[in-house]
Structures are given as structure tokens and as C-alpha cells.
């Protein structure tokens, strides 16, 4: 889809005056049903873990931002209950997005870029086991023309999968994400059709979980960790509202976000893609130019990706956290992380992360890494 004309006036924030890095990442175990714990009880160990990695206490954090959804909890202002976990006592500076935590990270990044904060705690959680997530997600659809039909999240992803088969980009006998998952996480058996052509092995297990990252600026980041994962670019874009207007085999918003984040300027060695459904990974690999010779040396979803575990509202933040963790461990020099929200890759966020040059590498990723 052509880019809206007025978007040209918006300059990317890349190249801004401050360097911002992910300095810590933690996530919970992902469980099918977390009825034994409330949201804040699930979140607390993750918050303690991520803060302990930096030596910071909750009260030392300049800005706190969270991502979650009232529709998963079935309760208004549900994020306020989880706020107890960060010591929500004045004068805390705090915000919340009703989206995946990757978008909370975007807000925190902007907050640090403005100079109003040097450190930020970003967390996200989802306890989708308390409801029926396939039905819950129908409530984010167009309420006039689509939501009254109650098309569930698997049905919409299945329409996209069929469009990919018809376009010859994948085929029905071979689950679309298998090749990628063989490189990364475990390969699951194809299983029964949920909504054909998607089988159970092409759909994410619905799990409850939480994740958190700490962001820090410049020298603060260097003080808090040996190898910060610097955010070199971060951008998010959205597709047209109606599914029938879109080409479901493509993701122009992912491509545009990646371009604005600087993803295509130099090759990456790692890509963490938020593709809850196997077929969506095909769309993302194409949009991000990870197929073919250019992508031959890219590790795609070494964490196993969202198809291995999809804690709704946290899975996108986990992609950024996993990419950053690889950089911090020295397993990556330049990584791309992607997060999505909404049906059929409606909204997409791309982050480009880099580690400082290491001795002997010249700062460039080695071939074949």
C-alpha cells in the first residue's frame, strides 16, 4: 500500500541526541493456567529479577510503563492492580498502554529521548486463561461490520494462511513455520485442523506469562551492564482497518517500520519475529527481506518465537528482550526485533538493537554467525 502523503513530514527519531539501551530482561515461566496467582503475584518475581540484574530498586526507576489488556482480565483498569508490584506510591512517574508491552517500551524509549528520564522499567503481562482468548480478541475488531459475526483470532489467521497458499508462498501440506522453527524452537506435530488450513501445530499455545525490561540512557546504561543492547531505531506502523482492503500476503507496515528503524541499512545477524501463527512468519520474512541470500546468515527466532509460547500482551516485548539478551550475551552484534498486535499482523513494531564493537570483530557481524 502506498505510504500516506502526510507521513513524509514525520522524520524518524533515529539519530537523536541520546543513546538508549536495553540493559536487563526477565520473563516468567509460561503456563497454561495461572489461576493460583493474581496478575501482580505472577509479575512480582519477574520485576524482582529484572531489577536485580541492574542493582536498581523500583524507587530508583525514573519512568515506568506497562502493557496489558482489560479484556483479558474482564475487568476495568486492571493494570492498576499490577501497579502494586512496582511500588505505585507518589511521586512515581507511570504510564500504561492497552497493547503488547513492546508499545510500552516505545513510549518509555521516547520518554528517555526527551531527556525526562534516564532509566525506565517496562513490563507486560497477560493471563488469558481466565477467559476464552479466541472470543476475547474478537472485541478488538470493527464493531459495526465485523465483530457482530464473532470471527475468532484463529479464523482470521486461517484466512491469511489460505491467501498465502493461493499465492504460492507456502503450501498446505507443509506447516508454514516448520522450516524456521527447525532453526530455533522445537517443531510441533501438525495436529488436527483448528480452522483449516491452520492446524494445532500452526497455532500458538495460549499461555499466561509476564516479561520486563529495563532501559537506560548513555553512561547510565554502561554503568548498569557490561554490554548494553543499544536501540538504534524503533518505529511502528499500522495497516488499513478493514481486512478486505488489505493484501493479506504482505505486510507493508512492517516493511515501513523496519525501513524507518534503519533495519535495511546493514545486515542483522538475529531476527526475533512476533508471528503467533506459522503462516505469519512467512509474511514477516518477506516484508523484512529475510528470505534468500540476504537472510542466509540471520538466526530467525532462536528463542523459539511466539509459536513456542504466546503470552498475549507480553509476547512482543519478549521478542525485544530476547534479541537484547543475545546481544548482551555476545551472541549477536546487530539484531532485529518485531512485535505485532491485532488480527493478521494489523500493527507492527520493529526495533534494531546493536552491541558495542568488540575487540577483533571490527564492529561488524562475522559471516555465518
Amino acid at each position, binding site marked *: 500500500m502506498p505510504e500516506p502523503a502526510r507521513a513524509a513530514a514525520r522524520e524518524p527519531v533515529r539519530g537523536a541526541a541520546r543513546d538508549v539501551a536495553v540493559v536487563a530482561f526477565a520473563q516468567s515461566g509460561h503456563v497454561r493456567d495461572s489461576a493460583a496467582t493474581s496478575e501482580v503475584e505472577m509479575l*512480582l518475581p519477574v520485576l524482582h529479577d529484572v531489577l536485580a540484574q541492574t542493582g536498581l530498586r*523500583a524507587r530508583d526507576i525514573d519512568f515506568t510503563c506497562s502493557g496489558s489488556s482489560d479484556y483479558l482480565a474482564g475487568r476495568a483498569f486492571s493494570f492498576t492492580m499490577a501497579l502494586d508490584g*512496582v511500588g505505585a506510591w507518589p511521586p512515581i512517574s507511570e504510564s500504561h498502554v492497552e497493547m503488547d508491552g513492546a508499545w510500552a517500551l516505545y513510549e518509555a524509549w521516547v520518554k528517555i529521548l526527551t531527556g525526562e528520564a534516564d532509566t525506565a522499567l517496562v513490563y507486560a503481562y497477560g493471563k488469558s486463561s481466565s477467559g476464552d482468548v479466541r*472470543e476475547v480478541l474478537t472485541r478488538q475488531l470493527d464493531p*459495526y461490520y465485523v465483530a457482530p459475526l464473532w470471527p475468532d483470532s484463529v479464523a482470521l489467521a486461517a484466512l491469511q494462511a489460505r*491467501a498465502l497458499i*493461493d499465492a504460492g508462498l507456502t503450501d498446505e501440506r507443509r506447516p508454514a513455520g516448520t522450516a524456521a522453527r527447525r532453526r530455533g524452537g522445537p517443531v510441533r506435530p501438525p495436529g488436527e485442523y483448528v480452522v*483449516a488450513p491452520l492446524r494445532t501445530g500452526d497455532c500458538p499455545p495460549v499461555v499466561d506469562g509476564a516479561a520486563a525490561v529495563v532501559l537506560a540512557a548513555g553512561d547510565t546504561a554502561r554503568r548498569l551492564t557490561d554490554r548494553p543492547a543499544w536501540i538504534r531505531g524503533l518505529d511502528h506502523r499500522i495497516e488499513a482497518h*478493514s481486512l*478486505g482492503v488489505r493484501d493479506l500476503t504482505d505486510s507493508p507496515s512492517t516493511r515501513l517500520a523496519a525501513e524507518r528503524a534503519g533495519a535495511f541499512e546493514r545486515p542483522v545477524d538475529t531476527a526475533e519475529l512476533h508471528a503467533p501463527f506459522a503462516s505469519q512468519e512467512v509474511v514477516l520474512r518477506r516484508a523484512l527481506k529475510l528470505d534468500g541470500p540476504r537472510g542466509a546468515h540471520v538466526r530467525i527466532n532462536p528463542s523459539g518465537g511466539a509459536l513456542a509460547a504466546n503470552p498475549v500482551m507480553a509476547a512482543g516485548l519478549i521478542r525485544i528482550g530476547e534479541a537484547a539478551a543475545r546481544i548482551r550475551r555476545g551472541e549477536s552484534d546487530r539484531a532485529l526485533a518485531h512485535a505485532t498486535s491485532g488480527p493478521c499482523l494489523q500493527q507492527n513494531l520493529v526495533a534494531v538493537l546493536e552491541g558495542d564493537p568488540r575487540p577483533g570483530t571490527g564492529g561488524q557481524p562475522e559471516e555465518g554467525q
Partner: protein
Amino acid sequence: MSEVLTAPLVVEFPFTRSLGPVQSAFLTGLRERCVLGVRATDGRVVVPPVEYDPVTADEIRDLVEVGTGGTVTTWAWNPSPRRGQPLAAPFAWVLVRLDGADTALLHALDAPGPEAVRTGMRVRIRWAAERTGAITDIACFEPAEGDRTVHQPQAHSGEFDDPLTGITTPARLDYTYSPGRAQSRYLQALADHRTIGERCPSCRKVYVPPRGACPTCGVATTTQVEVGPRGTVTTYCIVNIKARNLDIEVPYVYAHIALDGADLALHARIGGIPYDQVRMGLRVEPVWTDGSRYPDHYRPTGEPDADYDSYKELI
């Protein structure tokens, strides 16, 4: 550890939404078996119509009538229809490009099985017997092989008798609510007419009701502390307006009560004393009624009032 409580939770709303001019024309049109689209800035006909161009975001109002037959652009076979979906028997979800349209509409296709469905197949609208002006006025699509009628979009005023100005879309979601460990312990203790709080290991304050975390320090609270049953009124208000479905005579007093040993005040009704004699510092105790999981109200104990200094931090 005590058992974690769960309970069914139903969230249900009859969402009432107003319609803009384009949505109103489209949904009123469905009631009259007429499908309208809108011409976008680039000349494409968008069905179902939108008020703002999907690419340029310009306001668009140029309505056209399109055909009631069309072509499947993509589909998915749904072997297990769910509550609220258009058909009760297995069906195909389809995106259909109606004749004369350039975009596709999402709906259900009534077909005997997945082998009877393919991309590119011809289908037509099956109208609902009773139509109210909703997307469900299209009951579903049905196969219409051989129907090759070419339909050119026709300009349409969008005007109908008795146009719709709004729709009501009921929605219901079912949950199993779980309050987690800390609140389960609190509720289970209440069933035994005991009140428990939890102490923060950092600031030593006792929170009641406990939620498993100290909201000041941001650390987990794990030590249970029995508080009360007696307490002190820290502040109060006099309620003069009768709440619907609440069988309590007005005026009555609603108060914050610091239970003995707690560092956070609960709120509850005060009874057993004329409303205009309730005061800060009044010592009170809970009154339980049979079968209730929480005190019905608090009444004076007859003790001397508490010193202001003993509760001023809890106001």
C-alpha cells in the same frame, strides 16, 4: 496452602453505537437488500464502505450500489462453529469481493464441506428473513456457480426511508475469575469471621485486604497477620441518597475503619448508633449476619474513643 478460589465472571453489555452517514447508508441498505460501497480517492470501490479513505485518510462520501453476487478471494474452513458466529453447522469463513467492488467483505459461506469451497468460486448473498439494519442481515453467502452476471457499480444517493442512526450490538464474554493467593487467603479467613492482612518485609506495614504486594515498596508480602476484629473510625461520611437495590435507611454513615494491627483502613457502614453521633476515634467492632462472607456493618464497642495520635497516620 489453602485452596485458591475461583468464580464465574460474566461481562455483558448491549453496546449502543451511533452511525456516521456512510455506515448509516450501508446498514440501512442491507435492511432493504441493497449493498452500498464508497468510491475511494483512487477510484476503487470499497465494500463495506468506510468514511475515511484507507490510504489517504480523506473523507469520502461518494456512494455506489454494488452486486449481491461476488467472488471468494480467500477462505478458511471452520469445523466447530462458536457462539455468536453466523452459522451453527460447520461453514467457511470467506472474504468476498462483490461484483462492482474492489475490496472484500468478511462473512460466512454455507457449504457442505471444505471440498466444495475454493478461492475464485462464485457466491451470492442469502438474506436474513428478518432484517434490522446490521451486518447479520446478510445471513451468509451461498454457492452460486454459473452466476456470471457482470455488475457495474451504480451511483446511489444513500437515502432511504427511515434511515438507521445507531445500532445496538450485544456482547458477552465469560471468564473464570481468580483473585490469586493473597486475596483467596483473605476471603477464606473472612468466611471464619477473621480478617487477615499481610506484612511488608521492607516497611513492616500490614496491608488489608492483602494483594500479595506492598504498594509502597513494590515487594511481595508473604507474612499473614490477623488484625481486628475491633477498630477505630478514622474518617466518615453521611450518606443521604438511597442507592437502588440497597435496603438501608438513609441517612447512614459510611466510614474508614483502621482495624487494630492494620496499617491501612477498610471502609464499611456504621450501625447501632444514630448517624449524627458517629465521630472520628469511635471504637467499633464487626457485626456478622448468617451466611454472609463479610461483616454486615460495624457497631460501637462502648470503649473510650481512641486518641487522635493513635490513628492520624491512617486517615
